[in-house]
């Protein structure tokens, strides 16, 4: 891809703060810095993932890009158009879909929902029918479009949402946690649909907090934590951040905070995370290459009931966990 090409999406030092009020009688004002200086570029045709835990600022970033929120500072452009100065044109050329089951007219049929938004997006009347038909086909809702949305399952709603977002054939497509609350089979179909969009040459910005989803779909990933991008690269590059090393997993029954601190303080240990797996609490210790930490960590667990101890190679998930908990 030539470097001179205008990026499909460009964010330059985006910031957004929210003011919230708490308490009814004596309101205290609090400022939340949701996004703190986010910059990235997405090339045309690229599938870019914004990966981060809940509350990291993914939705806020997307909403600034799709003109629903005005940035507190910084700037952004979509297809070379400024998202604050050129709102109409940006809106015309982007599609937006968010996860969850809101955002549809429950009392209308799926078809009527699509007709309504076709009108709002100025899809020419002559093309509407065909367009809606082919989108229903794409998302697998053909035959169910006459039913009211009230009776749709979560997966069907999500697919209807995607059809809605594609009505006007946008060049850039924003997907905010589309797989939230969908069963594994539905989520797999959804990923296939998203992958299909890239085949069509659309630029896609996908946010998710599922590691594997980003790994499977994205050309490039930016990991966002507390409103800041902490790492960016292809899935392979991100894996390399931790691949030089090993992961030690220790199963315990009720580990104390002190023991975790001891493990953290051990030389050669990069990070320690405690994962709950049923009754077990698993200490996931990621270590520097060549470091021999097992003895130390186990010594620190003196007095704790310890189960299986194992070593493995790090995964992208470890990279992610390390990045967002550091």
């Amino acid at each position, binding site marked *: 891809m030539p470097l001179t090409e205008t990026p499909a999406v460009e964010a330059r030092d985006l910031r957004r703060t*929210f*003011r919230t009020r708490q308490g009814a009688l004596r309101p205290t004002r609090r400022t939340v810095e949701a996004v703190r200086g986010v910059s990235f570029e997405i090339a045309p045709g690229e599938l870019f993932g914004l990966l981060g835990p809940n509350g990291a600022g993914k939705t806020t970033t997307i*909403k600034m890009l*799709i*003109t*629903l*929120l*005005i940035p507190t500072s910084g700037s952004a452009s979509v297809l070379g158009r400024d998202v604050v100065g050129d709102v*109409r044109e940006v*809106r*015309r050329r982007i599609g*937006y879909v*968010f996860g*969850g089951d*809101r*955002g*549809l*007219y*429950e*009392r*209308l049929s799926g078809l*009527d929902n699509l*007709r*309504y*938004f076709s*009108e*709002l*997006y*100025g899809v020419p*009347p002559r093309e509407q029918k065909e367009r809606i038909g082919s989108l229903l086909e794409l998302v697998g809702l053909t035959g169910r479009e006459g039913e*009211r949305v009230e009776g749709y399952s979560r997966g069907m709603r999500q697919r209807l949402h995607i059809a*809605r977002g594609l009505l006007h054939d946008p060049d850039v497509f924003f997907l905010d946690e589309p797989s939230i609350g969908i069963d594994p089979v539905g989520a797999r179909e959804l990923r296939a649909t998203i992958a299909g969009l890239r085949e069509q040459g659309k630029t896609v910005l996908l946010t998710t907090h599922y590691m594997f989803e980003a790994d499977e779909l994205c050309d490039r990933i930016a990991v966002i934590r507390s409103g800041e991008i902490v790492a960016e690269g292809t899935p392979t590059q991100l894996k390399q951040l931790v691949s030089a090393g090993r992961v030690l997993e220790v199963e315990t029954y009720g580990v104390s905070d002190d023991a975790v601190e001891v493990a953290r303080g051990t030389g050669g240990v990069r990070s320690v995370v405690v994962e709950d797996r049923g009754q077990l609490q698993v200490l996931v210790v990621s270590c520097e290459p060549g470091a021999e930490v097992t003895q130390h960590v186990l010594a620190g667990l003196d007095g704790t009931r310890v189960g299986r101890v194992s070593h493995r190679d790090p995964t992208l998930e470890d990279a992610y966990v390390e990045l967002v908990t550091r």
Partner: protein
Amino acid sequence: MRQQVVCFWLQLKILLFSPFEGFLAVVFPLMFATAALLVYQVNGDPAAMLYAGIGAAAMGIWTSQTVSATTLVQRERRAGTLELVVAAPTPFSLVLLPITFAMAAIGLYSVVATILWDWWLFDIALQVENWPLFVLSILMAAVTIALFGFLLSVSAVRYRTSWALGAALEYPGWLLCGFVVPLDLLPAVLRPVSWLLAPTWAVEGMRAAAAGESPWGDLAICAAVGLAYAALAAWLGVRLITSARRDATLALT
């Protein structure tokens, strides 16, 4: 234009499909009319009954509009569709307009229902001298009240609590617009407020047409006030959306 018609039709579908609200929309106006007429019946004066009958008919539109216009944006917000329609390239005023007109259509139904109800239950056959002008006045009442609702609903985009304003306006509106009580009975300070409310003029027009007088003067003022609402709403719409984008109130419920 086509867009407005299609959106109007789909929004009307939404309103008609809501069983509970639909029931209220059918029954409430009739209850109001009944109450008003029972009060007036005590006097046994047929002229007063006619006066109340016409006013009660308009009351139904007012009630269905002011309350529902502000809850309308709140409804879109709760359904999560507010952000989606704002993010569409169509200006937001053009999104709201067909919705308010769909509500006006419901209001229009309530006028007809009330007139029939009055006739059937109280035997008030409306003595209307000039039917075409009377119908025109009713339409004007429906449209201008819809525009007033439009103005209220625009404000609800930014101010989440403005639905309370709509609810609060319901009963004062009955008095201020002179639906069931002659305006002359209001304190003088309140009269200018009545003049700012377009339905006042539409109801005057309805009465004038019924009495065989010329309603044109009233209707002209009514149209002017209605257009002023529309202009104000369109202007406010742009500003309030911008302000909602700045203060992040589109997504909150």
